[in-house]
């Protein structure tokens, strides 16, 4: 039943894309987060996808290999009255770029939808195959 492994392949892609959506959500949630007492602000996170062979030669799923933290410098805003301001009067914000994250979110949700559609089509075809000869 080679068609059944489509569910594994697309399922792995759906779970990887949903993890990507989770990371985007946590980035967007921390877009305005300021540095804590340790002086380190939230770092934007990105998922790294990797191909996973599944059974056959040309059958490949996907998994999240690791989650990297962006090392870009974050925003620094001069605001001496802010409770989290450092000795020079600057407040360190996270380095999340909200526009980039929104684009990432749209891309992830489209890929998610694509894979769901693939699974639906495979399910329809398999159900029709089950009714063969009737």
């Amino acid at each position, binding site marked *: 039943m080679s068609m059944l492994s*489509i569910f594994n392949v697309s399922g792995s892609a759906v779970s990887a894309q949903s993890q990507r959506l989770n990371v985007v959500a946590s980035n967007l949630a921390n877009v305005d987060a300021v540095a804590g007492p340790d002086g380190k602000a939230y770092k934007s996170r990105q998922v790294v996808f990797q191909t996973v062979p599944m059974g056959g030669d*040309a059958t490949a799923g996907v998994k999240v290999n690791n989650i990297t933290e962006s090392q870009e410098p974050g925003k620094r805003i001069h605001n001496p009255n802010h409770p989290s301001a450092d000795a020079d009067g600057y407040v360190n914000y996270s380095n999340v770029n909200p526009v980039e994250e929104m684009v990432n979110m749209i891309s992830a949700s489209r890929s998610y939808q694509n894979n769901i559609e693939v699974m639906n089509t495979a399910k329809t075809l398999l159900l029709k195959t089950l009714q063969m000869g009737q």
Partner: protein
Amino acid sequence: MLAQMTSGLDFHSKALVLRAERQRIIASNIANADTPGYVARDINFKEALSQMTGASSAELSRVTLQASNSASPGTTNPRHMALSGLSQSELSGATAGYAVQSQPSVDGNSVDLDRERASFVDNSVRYESTLRFINGSAKGILSAIQGQ
């Protein structure tokens, strides 16, 4: 007589298996649309089908030859009938090629999502049509058997 009746069915069943295989490969491509460095795969259906029908007839003759000589591999008794089903290596592997990149991307991913989606829909429609051919000839054979 029955061999003649079922030969068309046999051909369509092979085409169906190949369509399922292609469906799986395209699903892999769509799943890896965002994976850096992934190279899209596809099969040349025409070549694969002709290769498959050629291979299976060769295998069939080999099986009948072995059946007349001794027990074929996979059977424990000379009276066992050998299965003429296709092996997994025959289905996949050799026939899957690499798709040509239409719009090169920086991360080395060669999946063209529009093309893959179009191929996916095309392949599923063709899968269904093959299924209808099979259903049609199965109905024909059944009505011939029942004589009604």
